[in-house]
């Protein structure tokens, strides 16, 4: 399989004191759902933001679908940030229109269809939605693009188990087999069934990058149990 993402010799720090990555090398194949797993502060969000083009590496190279991170890659990368960036006073239909303007690959009909199933009306104001519904709307917007790479930063944190199931189902239903989803989380047991590959990040180092089922048969343990062992304090 071909590499969709190639990261080589990337260095990234915040100021001089805080080095997150000193020499990051990582390739991501296309057509996979990949879990980016690590404790808080291990560099997950920093990595995702570099792929989204929001942070620049201090050194090294990041290529997505053959291009250096920039306008060309932003057109094929769909990013769900950890925190909402929507203007909360907008109505759902305004958000949809905004996405339609911004992204050529946004499928409006698909977005409205998914919202209808949740009984969310275009005239509802984002601010007035429950936390779970806000998360769902953001995921629907991100998954309604026909991107090559989806970056989902903690998509299931802070929502109830039913909403979590809904979010996972939305990911499975909308995932097309050409695309890759990179999903960061520390709630591993909830999502490990849907992962092809897992990446463990520990203090800016990739300590493991493997097929989830291969890892299970090697260790006779769940990904969650292995994670707990690797990151034991």
């Amino acid at each position: 399989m071909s590499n969709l993402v190639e990261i080589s010799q990337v260095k990234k720090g915040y100021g001089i004191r805080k080095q997150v990555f000193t020499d990051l090398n990582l390739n991501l194949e296309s057509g996979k759902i990949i879990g980016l797993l690590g404790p808080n502060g291990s560099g997950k969000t920093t990595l995702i933001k570099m792929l989204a083009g929001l942070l620049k590496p201090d050194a090294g190279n990041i290529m997505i679908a053959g291009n250096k991170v920039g306008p060309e890659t932003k057109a094929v990368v769909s990013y769900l940030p950890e925190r909402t960036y929507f203007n909360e006073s907008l109505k759902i239909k305004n958000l949809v229109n905004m996405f339609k303007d911004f992204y050529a690959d946004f499928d409006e009909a698909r977005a409205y269809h998914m919202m209808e199933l949740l009984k969310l009306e275009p005239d509802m104001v984002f601010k007035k939605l429950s936390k779970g519904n806000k998360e769902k709307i953001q995921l629907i917007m991100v998954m309604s693009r026909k991107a090559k790479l989806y970056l989902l930063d903690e998509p299931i944190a802070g929502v109830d188990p039913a909403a979590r199931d809904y979010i996972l189902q939305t990911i499975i239903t909308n995932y097309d087999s050409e695309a890759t989803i990179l999903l960061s989380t520390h709630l591993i047991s909830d999502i490990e069934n849907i992962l092809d590959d897992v990446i463990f990040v520990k203090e800016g180092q990739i300590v493991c990058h493997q097929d989830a089922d291969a890892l299970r048969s090697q260790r006779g343990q769940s990904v969650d149990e292995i994670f707990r062992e690797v990151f034991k304090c």
Partner: protein
Amino acid sequence: MSWKFDNSSPIYMQIMEQIKKMIARGELKPGERVPAVRDMALTAGVNPNTMQKALSELERAGILVSNRTAGRFVADLGENSGNLKSDAGYKLTVNYVNGMRELGFDDKELVDSVRNYVSK
């Protein structure tokens, strides 16, 4: 049918076992069409790639057959159809016997235990 997974062994192998069980119990009949990969992945709550892998492995084992245009079907196993059931049963027996031996039961005791339970 609801799918349950034990995350400590490969998911695709567990899917294979569960489908074999469905065939052994007659819930899936020879010649019957298997639902599309994506639909099955959705009901099972797993990645479509994982479901695809399980189904292709079952195909390789001759338990499913695929027809390029019409989809995937349960193979007509003929005389071998009983094997799925006995294989699955054999696995359960192995698990039971190993578990009892681990607890320190000898062979006579574990056989007696089965007999007692059955005659209850």
